C-alpha cells in the first residue's frame, strides 16, 4: 500500500510539476510574443526561463556582431559580476559551436572543456542557436552549477523557447524597419512642408537636394528642371560634386540625369568615370558612383535628380534606390508646385503692375461691399488716398445724392454678373466727374469673394460728344439754311428762263428758245443735286422723319407715270405698267414712295436707249413674317451692270464710273436715298443686273408701315 501510496503520491507530484512547467512555458510564450522590441524579447526569454518550475538558474542571450564575429550579451540572469554588453570574442567560449553550425550543443561537465569561459566553478551548459530567416544571429546559453543537470526534456523546452524568441526577434526587427520607414516618411513630409513655405524655385530645389543628400547619406548631388520647349535639362541646384554645375544644360540622353530623363527609369552607375554615357560637361567632377532618377508627374517629365558618392568604398544598393524612388515623386511635386507658383507669381506681378499703372480707377470690394483696395488711378480720379477708403462703403463715398440709389443697385448687381454703365460720381473735393463704370464679380475657385470695379473718367469724352452733337446740329442747320439760300436764286434762274422761253416764243424770237432751255435744264439739275444732298444729310443726321398717310397705290402709280412719261420718251423707250388688280391702299410716306419710284424710273430711262422699261406693282405676303407687302419692280433693257458695280450701287456717290456721271448726269445719291427710305419704312430694295441685258430693281414695302420700323441712319 505504501508503494501504492508512494506511487499514488508520486504521481500527483509529477503531474503537478508538469502542470507548473507547462504554465511556466505558457507564460514564457506570452511574454516573448508580447515583447515590443528586440531588447524586450531577450529580456523575456531569460526571465521566462528563469522560473522555479523550470529550474534554470543561469541564463544569457548573446547576439552575433556580424562585423567582428564577437558575441555581445543582450540579457542575462544569475551570472554574478557580468557587465552589460559583455563581449565574448570570436573563437572563445563554448557557445561558439552553436553559432558555427546552428545546432544545439550540450556540455555535461564544463570543467572538462578548455574552451569554457569560467563563470561558474563547475556544472553543465546548453547552447541553443537563435536563427532568423535561416541565419544564426545569436545564441541562448543556459547553465547549471551541477554536472549532467540537463535531459532531453530540457533540450526540447529550450529549443522551443529559442524558436519562439527567434520568431519574435524577426518580427521586432521588421517592426523596427517599419518604424524607420515611418521616420523617413516623416522626414519627407517635413521636407515637403519646408518646400511649400519656400516656394521660390531655386531655393526649393536646393532644399530638395539637401534633403536627398542627407536622407541617402551621399557625398553630394544635383537637381535639374526640364524645359519642355528646349527639350533640355537645366541644372538648378548642385552640391558637393567637385564643381558648381548650376546652369549646365543637358540634352535628353546626355549624362546620368539626361539618361534617366530619356528612359524615365532610375539608374545606378557604379563607376562613373568608366561609364560610356558620361557627359563631356562632367569630365572634371570628383565622383565615383552615381544614382539618378527622373522627376515625373505621372508620365510627364519635370526634372531629374542625381546623387553621388565620391568615396570609392561606398556603393549604391537596392535600399538607396528604394529611398530615391520614394523621394523622387515628392521632389517632382515640389518642382511642379514651385514652377506653378513662380508662374502664378509672375502673372500676379504682371497684373499688379497693370493695376498699379492703369489710368483707370480700379477698386476691389469684399462681399459686404466694403473697399478692400484701390489703385493710384482711383486715388487720382477721386482724390482719396487708399488709407482713407479701405473699409468704407464705396457707394457712400463717391455717389452723389442723385446717383446713390443707382450706384447701390449697380453694386448689388455686380455681385452676380458684370455691369456696365455711365454715371456721375463725386470726388473728395465735392466736384463731380462723369465716369464709365464697369463692375464684375470676383470669383476664386467657384467661390465668390467680392467685386472689382473700374471707373473711367469720360468727362472729356462726354464733352467731345456734346461738341460733336452741337457741331452736327450746326451742320444740319447750315444745310437747311443753305438749301433755302440756294433755292431762292435757283427759283429765279429756273423761273425767269422758263418765263423768257414763253415770252420769246410769243414775240417770235424762237432762236433764243434752245439757249434758254439749257439755262433751265442746268438750273433744274443743280436743284436736284441740292435736294439729294439735303435728303442724305438729313437721313444721316437722323433728322429724316416719316409722314405716314393712307393713299391709293394705283392713283399714286398713275401720278408717277404721268410725271415720268416725258423722260421715258426722251430716249425712245417704251414704258409698260402692270398693276395687280386689287392693289388697294397702303399706309406709308407717300412723298418718299413717289420719290423712290421716280428715281428708279428716271434711272431706267437714263440708262436705256430704244428699249423697254416696265413697272410691275404687286401685293403679296412676306414669306418670312407674313406681313402684307407692296412690291414695285422696275425693269429695263438698258446697259446693265457688272457684279462689282451692283455691289456698290446703293452707296452714296457711287455711280458706276466717274464717266457715267458726265454722260448720264445725276448725283449718284438717288439709290442711296432710296435704300435708306426703304429701310426707314421697314422694307428693302434689291438689284439684279446683267451687262448689256438690263437691270431690275425691286422695292418691297409693308402695306402698313409702322413708325420707327428702322432707324433713319444706316
Amino acid at each position, binding site marked *: 500500500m505504501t508503494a501504492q501510496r508512494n506511487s499514488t503520491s508520486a504521481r500527483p507530484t509529477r503531474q503537478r510539476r508538469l502542470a507548473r512547467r507547462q504554465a511556466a512555458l505558457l507564460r514564457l510564450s506570452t511574454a516573448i510574443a508580447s515583447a515590443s522590441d528586440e531588447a524586450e524579447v531577450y529580456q523575456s526569454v531569460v526571465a521566462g526561463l528563469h522560473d522555479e518550475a523550470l529550474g534554470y538558474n543561469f541564463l544569457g542571450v548573446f547576439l552575433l556582431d556580424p562585423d567582428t564575429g564577437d558575441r555581445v550579451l543582450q540579457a542575462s540572469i544569475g551570472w554574478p559580476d557580468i557587465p552589460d554588453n559583455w563581449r565574448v570574442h570570436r573563437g572563445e567560449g563554448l557557445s561558439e559551436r552553436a553559432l558555427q553550425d546552428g545546432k544545439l550543443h550540450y556540455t555535461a561537465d564544463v570543467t572538462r572543456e578548455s574552451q569554457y569561459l569560467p563563470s561558474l566553478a563547475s556544472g553543465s551548459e546548453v547552447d541553443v542557436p537563435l536563427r532568423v530567416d535561416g541565419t544564426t544571429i545569436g545564441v541562448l546559453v543556459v547553465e547549471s552549477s551541477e554536472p549532467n543537470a540537463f535531459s532531453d526534456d530540457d533540450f526540447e523546452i529550450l529549443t522551443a523557447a529559442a524558436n519562439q524568441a527567434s520568431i519574435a526577434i524577426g518580427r521586432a526587427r521588421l517592426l523596427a524597419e517599419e518604424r524607420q520607414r515611418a521616420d523617413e516618411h516623416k522626414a519627407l513630409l517635413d521636407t515637403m512642408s519646408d518646400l511649400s513655405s519656400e516656394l521660390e524655385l531655386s531655393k526649393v530645389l536646393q532644399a530638395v537636394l539637401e534633403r536627398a543628400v542627407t536622407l541617402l547619406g551621399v557625398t553630394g548631388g544635383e537637381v535639374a528642371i526640364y524645359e519642355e520647349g528646349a527639350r533640355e535639362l537645366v541644372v538648378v541646384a548642385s552640391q558637393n560634386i567637385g564643381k558648381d554645375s548650376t546652369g549646365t544644360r543637358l540634352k535628353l540622353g546626355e549624362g546620368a540625369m539626361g539618361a534617366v530623363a530619356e528612359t524615365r527609369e532610375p539608374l545606378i552607375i557604379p563607376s562613373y568615370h568608366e561609364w560610356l554615357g558620361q557627359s563631356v560637361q562632367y569630365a572634371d567632377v570628383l565622383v565615383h558612383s552615381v544614382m539618378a532618377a527622373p522627376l515625373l508627374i505621372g508620365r510627364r517629365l519635370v526634372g531629374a535628380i542625381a546623387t553621388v558618392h565620391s568615396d570609392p568604398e561606398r556603393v549604391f544598393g537596392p535600399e538607396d534606390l528604394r529611398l530615391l524612388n520614394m523621394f523622387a515623386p515628392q521632389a517632382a511635386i515640389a518642382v511642379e508646385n514651385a514652377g506653378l507658383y513662380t508662374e502664378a507669381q509672375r502673372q500676379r506681378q504682371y497684373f499688379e503692375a497693370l493695376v498699379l499703372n492703369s489710368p483707370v480707377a480700379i477698386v476691389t470690394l469684399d462681399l459686404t461691399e466694403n473697399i478692400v483696395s484701390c489703385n493710384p488711378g482711383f486715388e487720382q480720379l477721386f482724390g482719396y488716398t487708399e488709407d482713407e477708403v479701405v473699409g468704407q462703403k464705396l457707394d457712400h463715398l463717391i455717389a452723389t445724392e442723385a446717383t446713390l440709389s443707382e450706384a447701390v443697385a449697380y453694386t448689388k448687381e455686380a455681385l452676380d454678373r458684370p455691369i456696365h454703365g455711365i454715371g456721375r460720381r463725386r470726388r473728395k473735393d465735392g466736384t463731380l466727374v462723369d465716369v464709365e463704370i464697369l463692375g464684375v464679380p470676383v470669383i476664386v475657385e467657384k467661390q465668390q469673394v467680392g467685386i472689382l470695379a473700374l471707373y473711367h473718367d469720360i468727362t472729356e469724352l462726354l464733352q467731345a460728344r456734346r461738341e460733336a452733337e452741337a457741331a452736327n446740329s450746326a451742320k444740319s442747320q447750315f444745310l*437747311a439754311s443753305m438749301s433755302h439760300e440756294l433755292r*431762292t436764286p435757283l*427759283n429765279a434762274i*429756273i*423761273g*425767269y428762263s422758263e418765263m423768257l422761253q*414763253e415770252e420769246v416764243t410769243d414775240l417770235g424770237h424762237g432762236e433764243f428758245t434752245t439757249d434758254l432751255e439749257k439755262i433751265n435744264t442746268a438750273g433744274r439739275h443743280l436743284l436736284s443735286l441740292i435736294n439729294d444732298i439735303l435728303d442724305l444729310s438729313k437721313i444721316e443726321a437722323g433728322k429724316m422723319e*416719316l*409722314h405716314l398717310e393712307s393713299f391709293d397705290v394705283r392713283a399714286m402709280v398713275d401720278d408717277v407715270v404721268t410725271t415720268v412719261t416725258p423722260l421715258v420718251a426722251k430716249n425712245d423707250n417704251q414704258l409698260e405698267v402692270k398693276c395687280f388688280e386689287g392693289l388697294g391702299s397702303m399706309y406709308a410716306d407717300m412723298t418718299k414712295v413717289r420719290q423712290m419710284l421716280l428715281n428708279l424710273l428716271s434711272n431706267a430711262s437714263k440708262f436705256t436707249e430704244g428699249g423697254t422699261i416696265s413697272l410691275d406693282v404687286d401685293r403679296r405676303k412676306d414669306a418670312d413674317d407674313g406681313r402684307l407687302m407692296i412690291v414695285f419692280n422696275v425693269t429695263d433693257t438698258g446697259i446693265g451692270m457688272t457684279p462689282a458695280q451692283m455691289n456698290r450701287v446703293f452707296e452714296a456717290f457711287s455711280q458706276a464710273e466717274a464717266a457715267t456721271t458726265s454722260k448720264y448726269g445725276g448725283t449718284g445719291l438717288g439709290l442711296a436715298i432710296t435704300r435708306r427710305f426703304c429701310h426707314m419704312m421697314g422694307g428693302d430694295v434689291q438689284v439684279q443686273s446683267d451687262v448689256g441685258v438690263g437691270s431690275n430693281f425691286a422695292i418691297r414695302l409693308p402695306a402698313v408701315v409702322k413708325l420707327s420700323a428702322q432707324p433713319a441712319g444706316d
Partner: protein
Amino acid sequence: MSKILLVEDNEMNRDMLSRRLVRKGYEVAMAVDGREGIEMARTGEYDLILMDMSLPEVDGWEATRQLRAAPETESVPIIALTAHAMAGDREKALEAGCDDYDTKPIELDRLLSKMETLLSK
C-alpha cells in the same frame, strides 16, 4: 378775272411769279411780308392767296392762322408756297389752315392746276 394776292418777300420771285400769272390772265396784287398780307387780305378783294411761308414780320403760318380766325377771310382759298421741300411742311401748312401747298421752284402748270381747282369750288 380772278384776283390773286401774292404774299412774297423775295423781290425776284415776286416779280417773276406775278408776271407769269398776269400773262396767264390773272389780276395780281402783292404784299412783301405777313403783316401787309393780312392787311390787304382783310379788304376781301381777293379770290385766292398765294402765301410764302418764310416771311418777315409775321410768317406765313401765323398769317394764315390769323386770316382763318377772322370772319371776313376765313374762307378765302390759300395756297402755301415754300422753299422748304421737306415732308412735314405740307402737313404744317395744312394745319395752319392752308387749302393746298406747293414747293418752290414753281412748276407753273402744276400750280395753275391747283389754283384752278380751288377757284372753281
